[in-house]
């Protein structure tokens, strides 16, 4: 089974998790975002390019499930996945919390990008007070969920690219 098929399996798992679990249990109306977690984690494990690709397809799947402008999720999660990879590449890792912080920042950036671009193209109600809550809660949940997801992404990409030593640590 090659990497692409494994990553596709992870994407399908993300759909089930999002629909089955995360959307049911919200904090202040905010749900964890399985697609964003997958995009950012892939970027952190496999690098910015693969993070961007997986982010694009994860966002595309999200676009199929929601009614926000089609393509917005693909663009935002591509950015988040790439950013996860870029940040992981430049940050010196000495503790797990730094890895979690990278996931937090990349996820928060993805949420903000989604809201700001959505607002710029005419979707009202995206940039308002609740956005801060959404950004913090999604970022926080991504930071936590990144840890188990990292194992899954490592499995999916086992026979492709060399991994970052820091991620294994």
């Amino acid at each position, binding site marked *: 089974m090659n990497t692409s098929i494994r990553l596709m399996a992870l994407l399908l798992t993300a*759909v089930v998790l999002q629909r089955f*679990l995360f959307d049911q249990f*919200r904090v202040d109306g905010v749900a964890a*975002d399985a697609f964003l977690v997958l995009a950012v984690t892939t970027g952190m494990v496999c690098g910015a390019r693969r993070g961007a*690709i997986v982010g694009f397809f994860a966002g595309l799947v999200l676009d199929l*499930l929601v009614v926000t402008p*089609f*393509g917005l999720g693909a663009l935002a999660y591509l950015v988040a996945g790439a950013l996860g990879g870029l940040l992981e590449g430049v940050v010196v890792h000495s503790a797990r919390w730094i890895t979690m912080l990278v996931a937090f920042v990349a996820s928060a950036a993805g949420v903000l990008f989604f809201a700001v671009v959505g607002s710029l*193209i005419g*979707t009202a109600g995206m940039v308002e007070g609740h956005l801060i809550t959404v950004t913090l809660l999604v970022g926080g949940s991504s930071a936590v969920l990144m840890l188990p997801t990292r194992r899954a992404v490592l499995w999916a990409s086992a026979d492709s690219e060399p991994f970052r030593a820091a991620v294994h640590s």
Partner: protein
Amino acid sequence: MAPRRSTGRSRSTVILLVLTAITLLTLSGRGVGALDSTRAAVTSAVSPIGDAARWLFGPFSGAWNAAFDHGDLARRNDALVQENERLLGQLTQASISTQQLQELLNLVGIPFLGNTPVVHTRVVSGTIGNFGDTIELDKGASAGVVKGMPVITGQGLIGKVKVVGEDRCTVELITGGSFRVGFIVIGTSAVGIAEGVGRPSILRGTNIDVAQTVTEGQVVVTAGLRGSSFPPNIPIGSVKSVRSEEASRQTLVEISMFASTRDLTYADVVLWTPGG
């Protein structure tokens, strides 16, 4: 040379994906039907997962959401207590109340939708993800539901159908702010445009001629002007606050919706399409 080639390939792949996303956004903005059809098919395909989750986690998620929404529950409870006291007070004026009710109906003006047929539906799912206020209903194209149809509760307008599958449809709630509704203020000649602001039960009304006098408490219903996506006279809400902008020659209002978009269990799809 190899790393440079690899970097170039990475860059071109990412650029290609960005361009693809922008193209999709453009097509979405132009309302290309194929995207909606694909969404409808995916919605239908994954709906069993949502049903199973609702069946399995329903009681737990209710308790979970209540635990994390305690402040809001307390506020709503206070509001209900006040409402209850007000209604009890009104009961003592029973003979007058009947007359007042009739007057109110006359003031609102209109039979709610007249003879326009509706499809009764059950809400089977809430919003997926964190953006875009939506609900999923258990009826779709097989029941005559078509994209763009208004969705109401007993109190008034809540949204319109966005995506239609064979036995499901996704409704975009008006509170999300992703579409606008033309309205008239009952008892005046004021017309305006209402849109959501991302807050439950609150809409913003704009484009009202500053020469028109609008006061707090007045009832707002859909205008149903030519080309409108909604039929006339669906109750929307009442004017909560009024502010005039002399510079832009318009009056802005805040509208408190009659219908609640939270904790919905049932909703009706109005079988009405523009021009139909």
